[in-house]
């Protein structure tokens, strides 16, 4: 019998339902594992009492005969989701010790589904970053090679799942923050269509792009969590769509015969590392073996997605982060002479370098005299990027390509060069800007034995089709079952 931490979400739920193991035992097992691997830096907050109380409640529901598919299964949340029972920092000193009086909708929905919270997961400060090095609470280490970054911003989530410290985790994806760390850590993650998951209680980075999604080891596990966390939230989030959630597991098991997989030529240009290219190529061949048909498509504005994203996201962020002013909650400078000085010192002390940089860029592009040239122009190009996808989806059913140009780089490798990080976002940004669902699944290994992820992008509301395509791949391959040596 395999160890509890080796079981998939689906398998764990089966054991719990059959009462072969209790939710308390499962929770204790994962808490102990998290403690043993604290050096990875994945968790920012745990509280065994809270976790075990939730586990006992789940056991009571199981005992009462309830058969919800996630009942008693542990989960950990990216620290960008506010939680009543755990502190929430968003990876920032600004919110050190902050405790929310309410749970994010995603957190609430998973709790209602019976999931037991193991704690809060490290991330780049306010979800701004691609390496998790921007967390005020230290970097997270990639379990495949602890000298490397796990990706970001949901780095803690990816590591917790990859190192089997949690069977599943929540993440958020603004410009690739679920897909890229999933790629770097060899796990599976999906960002649904913008508006399918409520943003209520997700600390806002870039409101028009932020989306929550699950990260787990398999497409099947992601489908289980995604079914529970999606759905309309009209009383709390005006951008949540009036589209009911689905049981995405029902989409799994369908044949890929005749599925048209679009391969955008712009995703295979010069910047793509050879090892990644080879793994992706092999994955595409695997899909052809499964009956899918490969078609070349074009997303001509792929390169433009970088400047467009790095105008729109900082613009929204500069405004979203204005509330962190030391007046009502969070950090406030200890010494100041007047109101302006209080603002300046509080924000200078509370925010990290990357956050400050994006606030400045965002403030600049929204300024009088620059708004039209930057923000407005970026919005126009954003619509054109969405049009490119619309056109591409007339020729294919799913788009496939790399999630990142390289495997995970070394900690500190990009040093003080944020541009290097920005450029690495090129393959995940287009789907974010278009609001499309996108996912990433392990498809091989590259340099240094580091995982390579395959990105799948679907048409709006086609999460089921994506998950089915990923599931079929995982039925035929075992990349998603590989695990890093140090944490076995």
């Amino acid at each position, binding site marked *: 019998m395999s160890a509890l931490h080796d079981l998939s979400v689906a398998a764990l739920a089966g054991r719990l339902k059959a009462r072969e193991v209790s939710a308390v035992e499962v929770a204790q097992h994962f808490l102990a594992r998290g403690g043993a691997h604290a050096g990875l830096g994945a968790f920012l907050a745990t509280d065994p009492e809270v976790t075990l109380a939730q586990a006992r409640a789940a056991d009571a529901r199981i005992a009462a005969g309830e058969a919800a598919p996630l009942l008693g299964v542990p989960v950990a949340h990216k620290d960008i*989701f*506010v939680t009543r029972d755990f502190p*929430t920092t*968003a990876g920032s000193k600004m*919110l050190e010790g*902050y405790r*929310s*009086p*309410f749970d*994010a909708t995603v957190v609430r929905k998973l709790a209602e589904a019976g999931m037991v919270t193991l704690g809060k997961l490290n991330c780049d400060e306010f979800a701004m970053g691609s390496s998790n090095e921007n967390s005020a609470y230290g970097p997270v280490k990639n379990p495949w090679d602890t000298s490397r970054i796990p990706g970001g911003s949901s780095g803690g989530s990816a590591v917790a799942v990859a190192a089997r410290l949690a069977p599943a985790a929540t993440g958020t994806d603004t410009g690739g923050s679920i897909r890229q760390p999933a790629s770097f850590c060899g796990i599976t993650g999906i960002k649904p269509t913008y508006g399918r998951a409520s*943003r*209520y*209680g*997700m*600390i*806002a980075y*870039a*409101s*028009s792009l932020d989306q929550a999604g699950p990260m787990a080891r398999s497409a099947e596990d992601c489908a289980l969590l995604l079914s529970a966390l999606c759905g309309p939230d*009209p*009383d*709390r*989030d*005006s*951008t949540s769509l009036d589209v009911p959630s689905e049981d995405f597991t029902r989409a799994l098991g369908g044949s890929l015969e005749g599925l048209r997989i679009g391969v955008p030529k712009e995703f295979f240009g010069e910047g793509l590392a050879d090892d990644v290219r080879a793994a992706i190529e092999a994955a595409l061949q695997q899909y052809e073996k499964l009956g899918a048909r490969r078609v070349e498509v074009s997303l001509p504005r792929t390169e433009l997605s970088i400047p467009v994203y790095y105008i729109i996201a900082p*613009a*929204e962020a*500069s*405004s979203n*982060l*204005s*509330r962190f*002013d030391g*007046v*009502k*909650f969070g950090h406030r400078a200890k010494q100041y002479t007047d*109101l302006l000085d209080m*603002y300046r010192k509080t924000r200078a002390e509370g925010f990290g370098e990357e956050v400050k940089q994006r606030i400045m860029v965002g*403030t600049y592009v*929204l*300024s*009088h005299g620059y*708004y039209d040239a930057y*923000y407005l122009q970026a919005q126009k190009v954003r619509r054109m990027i969405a049009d490119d996808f619309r056109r591409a989806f007339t020729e294919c059913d799913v788009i496939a390509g790399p999630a990142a140009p390289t495997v995970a780089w070394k900690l500190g490798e990009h040093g003080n060069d944020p541009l290097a990080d920005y450029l690495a976002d090129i393959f995940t940004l287009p789907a974010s800007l278009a609001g499309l669902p996108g996912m990433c699944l392990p498809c091989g290994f590259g340099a240094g034995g580091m995982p390579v992820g395959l990105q799948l992008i679907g048409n709006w509301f086609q999460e089921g089709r994506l998950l089915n395509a990923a599931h079929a791949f995982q039925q035929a391959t075992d990349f998603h079952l590989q695990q890093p040596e140090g944490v076995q």
Partner: protein
Amino acid sequence: MSRLVQGYEVVIGFETHAQLSTRSKIFSRAPTDFGAEPNTQASAVDLALPGTLPVMNKGAVERAIAFGLAVNAHIAPRSVFARKNYFYPDLPKGYQISQYEIPVVQGGVVEFYLGDEKRSVRLVRAHLEEDAGKSLHEDFVGQSGIDLNRAGTPLLEIVTEPDMRSTEEAVAYAKELHKIVTWIGICDGNMQEGSFRCDANVSVRKPGQPLGTRREIKNLNSFRFMQQAIDYEIRWQIEELEDGRAIEQATVLFDPDTGETRAMRTKEDAADYRYFPDPDLPPLVVAPEWVEQVRASMPELPRAMAARFVADYGLPEYDATTLTQSPAMAAYFEAAARSSGQPKLASNWIMGEVSRRLNAQEIDIGQAPVPAATLAALVGRIADGTISNSAARQVFEALWSGEGSNVDALIEAKGLKQMNDTGELEKILDGIIAANPDNVAQFKAGKDKAFNALVGQAMKATKGKANPQQVNELLRRKLQG
């Protein structure tokens, strides 16, 4: 028609913040009641706690639509909320959600009478936005307190063209606007509590010249202060110009204690608010059916009602305008007019005796101790000749003071019924003629004053119960016959 002040033409435009009378806030479910303990009516959304998001209150939109319909404006089928970014402790999010480029109400006109002259002021727009909280500087030594109860209260900001040409016209506009918003029930109109706050943009110029530089007087919260502030500002600007100084664009505050305006900030301090569409709120879509639904639920508007009073009741325009100052006043008139069948007489009484007493006691018509039906009964008794006007005033006084509530019973009890018995009256008149030979002689010599004296005697002798018209006729006949 613009009147010149010392050779200058005055140009005034208004921006008015009307607090919408929704029970909960514009983007949260916290209540909007005035005067609660600080920070007891601020929800997580109002405090801008991390992770909170705005959700539009439909009631606020409906009130904006109603206003648009009341002023014949265009209701935008799609309008956009924007963020106005600035830091201030009573602005919890660090930005105010407001409509910027595309407001929900576009254009429109407010019409009113300035004396006998009909005036109309064009509106540029009316847009929805949220109010900020309050900074309390008095109660804390060396610190400021923040009360966020008001944060997120829905406001409709109503902006005019610079169409007004005098203080009087500006105040008349503000009063008319106040009447409209309270009439249609979108705002309680309480100026002391800040539910209706006006900013006046004032400039002066020589006739034919381009617009002068304006100064904006902020937060005028009474019509009296409005009058004083604008008058002062006009005089001040003219003096500056006459002394050869240029007017600098500025925001000014009126100090009621000194009666002066003083500059708060000048144009150089103008902030860059970095407006951009709020990504948390989809565009506000108002379907034609929604507009019709709001229209169907709206009361008859004051101008339409006044026109109807003229047409249906034959009232003069002045009466009709006066009686349509408030829905309660108009309803009172209509009830009295219908039940008595004497609209003009009812109008006279309401605009006279009733209004005088309401004003003296500073109460409104809803609190009048004499119900419309009772006034109608009284008016009916005047019309059918049962009592004279002066007797009616005595009855009215008794009704108002609570001495009685039945008109006929009071007439009876006070013995005020007019003497309609000609025989008895003739006897009294004969006696008066006999007792006043001097007056009779003077009358016959052509002095009308002497006649009036005799009528007076007759009224006195009958304790006012005689019908003055009848006294007149009989007396004249007797003296001339």
